[in-house]
């Protein structure tokens, strides 16, 4: 269970204070939790606060009752928090196998690596020796990022827009990956997404806008309202 208590994050921009997160209170215990809301609303910052990359200016974070607010990224990772980046990082020289091995935290066999990679639609034979460099497309990197989270197998997994750029690979597969992950590991999976199909599998939907929790509840309650309040102009709506 993850608890966020009165989380705020303020930055100073050219002497002007900007509140990115404003007094966020959440307790996450469900299987699938979707975090949605407009771009720039604070979702990614909240994810980075949970992973320990960003230190909140106020508030506490608890994982299974333990206060982890002052813990480092490494300590939180070891306590069971995984974080799939919105924009995966490239590494010259490190291979897909190296990263999956590091994620698993132990030597893994080719067949184990194959099990993770095939879940995200990649053939291990083709990919295991590839460098995580510019030769891989954004979509391939996203899938490898997801395979790494699977290899980690932690109790709290956080995905920042996992569907962005997964090109030829279908949404159904992605959703299956999340379902399998949950069957195997239990715990909670928190997904930042704008996609209706991903929101559709969530047990709970949280809307973050302007740094605050705008709406929070069961999917059945939040989703209809969210979809009817599409703030697009008529020209764009007609084309969608």
């Amino acid at each position, binding site marked *: 269970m993850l608890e966020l208590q009165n989380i705020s994050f303020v930055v100073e921009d050219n002497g002007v204070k900007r509140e990115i997160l404003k007094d966020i209170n959440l307790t996450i215990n469900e299987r699938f939790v979707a975090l949605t809301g407009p771009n720039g609303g604070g979702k990614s910052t909240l994810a980075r606060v949970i992973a320990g*990359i960003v230190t909140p200016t106020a508030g506490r974070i608890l994982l299974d009752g333990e206060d982890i607010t002052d813990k*480092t990224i490494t300590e939180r*990772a070891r306590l069971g928090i995984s974080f799939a*980046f919105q924009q995966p*990082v490239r590494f010259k020289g*490190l291979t897909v196998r190296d*990263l999956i091995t590091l*994620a698993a935290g132990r030597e893994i066999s080719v067949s184990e690596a194959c099990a993770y990679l095939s879940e995200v639609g990649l053939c291990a034979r083709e990919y295991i020796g590839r460098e995580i460099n510019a030769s891989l497309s954004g979509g391939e990197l996203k899938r490898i990022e997801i395979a790494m989270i699977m290899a980690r197998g932690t109790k709290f997994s956080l995905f920042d827009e996992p569907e962005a750029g997964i090109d030829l690979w279908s949404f159904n597969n992605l959703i299956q990956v999340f379902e399998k992950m949950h069957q195997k590991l239990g715990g909670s999976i928190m997904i930042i997404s704008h996609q209706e199909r991903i929101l559709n599998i969530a047990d709970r939907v949280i809307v973050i806008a302007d740094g605050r929790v705008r709406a929070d509840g069961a999917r059945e309650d939040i989703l209809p309202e969210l979809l009817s309040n599409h703030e697009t102009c008529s020209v764009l709506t007609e084309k969608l």
Partner: protein
Amino acid sequence: MDKIEKNLLEQITDLHDVPQGAYNIRANGQLSGRATTENIDIVTKTDKPGIDIIIKPGTKNESVHIPVLISQTGLQDLVYNDFYIGEDADITIVAGCGIHNAGDDESRHDGIHSFHLAKGARLRYIEKHYGDGDGNGENVMNPTTVVELGEDAYMEMETTQIKGISSTVRVTKGKLGDGATLIVKEKIMTHGKQYAETDFTVDMDGVDCSANVMSRSVAKGNSKQVFRSRINGNNRCSGHTECDAIIMDDACVSAIPEVTANHLEAALIHEAAIGKIAGEQLIKLMTLGLTEQEAEEQIVSGFLK
């Protein structure tokens, strides 16, 4: 060989004992062991220190090891080695120098290697430089490599210097004939107050020849590196030079690529990038449970793999 020499040998050749096939081991400035084969002859020079290595035409799947080991502090060693690779031969040569300096004087090895590849010959040349020892004496290596590639000859040169060399100036010169290919892969890591300079000059004289010079390096501490690469396209040819460096602490790296086209059909590219380890790379590995230091080690060792 004593324990120190065996360790140096392992560091530069990955071998635990004398190699298979042809070899010439030079220890503390003296010949310590030699073996030749039906196709590979090794002859001591009479006019200056060094050896001639002569590979018969058509020799396939054979290797030559020519390690140099120095464990005597203050030894200044200079050798001239000439390699003659016969037509259509296809072989591997493993060279390298290991210095163990437990004293206070400078130990130094300067190897001047000349390669002559006949028509259609193929060579993989691997060279590792390594130094250790607990003394204050410096370990210095200044290798010079001169390469002449005949028609359709192919040479791949891999040089590695990871540890323990206080100062090095590496000079490599290449002259390429028609259809010849030269590939150079260099890996360097410097630390402390070390200095490493590499200087490549490739003259692409033959029609349809190609050259690719790639350097990856990591500079730590107060070390300094200079990478200079000159590629001259004197005919219809393609040339590429690339320097990719990670800089850490208070180190300094200069990359000076220079490409010159003296022919309309010469296609030449140079790339150079120097930068510190990206923060996002460290963060990504930390979210996998690595400490910042472990993440840094993984990134550096992957980069130099």
